């Protein structure tokens, strides 16, 4: 074994085993530590910034996704069966990242909403869910002054339509 081993308390560790250990430390330990200390994200090394922002007031600024049917039916799309594979809150957060607020260019958000409506109708026609037919999808910006238990959830302070996307004629 000689020069290829290191003795520690009578136990030996081969050079190759030590090399593999250091490779693992460099590949997984170091990026984890750097992401924690410096910040930044490169999957799967994250800086876990959820809930990190200061939130000094109880003002809630959120979104609502609503589908409209051809005969005036209205459906809040918060049932996960309608928006597979998203959860409702995930979907709304995703829309924020696509600039659904229209602060610079809402085109990507409108394209994504069209895809969502297309997927909803396709899945409905395949019998994957029992939702009503929809020909339009709308996103609203909703604001509340928060109350315990979300007591005023159904009566927000304001509700403003941000985007409305219709089903293409070929899908109707």
């Amino acid at each position, binding site marked *: 074994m000689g020069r290829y081993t290191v003795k520690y308390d009578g136990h030996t560790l081969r050079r190759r085993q030590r090399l593999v250990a250091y490779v693992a430390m460099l590949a997984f330990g170091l990026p984890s530590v750097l992401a924690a200390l410096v910040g930044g994200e490169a999957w799967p090394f994250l800086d876990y910034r959820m809930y990190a922002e200061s939130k000094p007031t109880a003002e809630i600024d959120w979104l609502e996704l609503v589908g409209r049917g051809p005969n005036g039916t209205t459906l809040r799309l918060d049932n996960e069966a309608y928006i597979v594979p998203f959860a409702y809150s995930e979907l709304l957060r995703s829309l924020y990242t696509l600039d659904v607020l229209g602060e610079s260019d809402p085109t990507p958000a409108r394209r994504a909403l069209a895809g969502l409506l297309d997927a909803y109708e396709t899945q409905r026609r395949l019998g994957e869910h029992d939702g009503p037919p929809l020909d339009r999808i709308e996103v609203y910006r909703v604001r509340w002054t928060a109350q315990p*238990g979300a007591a005023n959830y159904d009566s927000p302070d304001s509700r403003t339509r941000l985007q409305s996307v219709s089903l293409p004629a070929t899908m109707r």
Partner: protein
Amino acid sequence: MSALAAAWHAFWFAPAVPWPLGFCRAGFFGSFYVLFLSRTNLRWYALFPPGFYQPRSFFAWLSLPTPSWEVMGWLVTAFEISVILAALGLLTRLATLTAFALGLYVLGLQFNYGYLHWAHAIVPIVMGILALAPCGDALSLDALFRRVVTGNAGEAGGQHRWPIQLVRLVFVTVFLAAGLAKLRQAGLEWVLSDTLRNYFLENQYVFRSEGATTWGHLLADWLIVRPGLCRVFAVVVLAVELSTPAALFSRHAWRLLIPLLFLFQVGNALLLYQDFFFAYLGLYLFWIPWVDGGRGPGGKIRI
């Protein structure tokens, strides 16, 4: 050997018997499969509407395409099989390597759709560490076959200690990162204002359906009308997150911090309606002090 080098070697390479690492491997992969993978259909990630795709990280660097339903089905099936094999310790090296490579992709796919299950990120990292470690040397079918064929039962050595220490290091960086992110983004305002209370409130709106179906909202309601208590909680949360590296070196810190982190995560699930941490619940096994000779991190090592 200098004191620093001796401490470094003692931390990473002090000899350890093989079975605690084998137990951690079996427990991590087994719990990941039973508690998460068998209850989550990752194949659905192929159904994201295309307009939502915003490739990031290596998905962008390598211009990886989005998978079809069929391809995703094969990838997820292979991932599931590799996780089961890794838990059993059958073809352990191949199984852990496959689980790492496929986990990186199938778990990371959602990262490209604007929202992330933060808690899942540590899973492929740990799979990668175990893929490089001799984690099949004990409590595995491979070890059983090896023992039958060669009579070799595996020897104690530093190769069975560093993987556990490295998983612990990665584990504490998750919480350290969360604490430092709060300081970077909000500073002490995070504990001096009603920030935590307002997050409790906000999530009752954001996670309306999740909140309505758990009893956590009753506890959240109770806390929300006690802003002073919420601030005390905020101080405790930040202090615990920033202190977690101490659990690597101090037995006293380990005894205090690891149970607190567990409670902290239970609180996250109940009060903020986050997913319960099933995907990496098994990582707490790495903190059971067997590998340290029964004394916990920083304790005297006995083999």
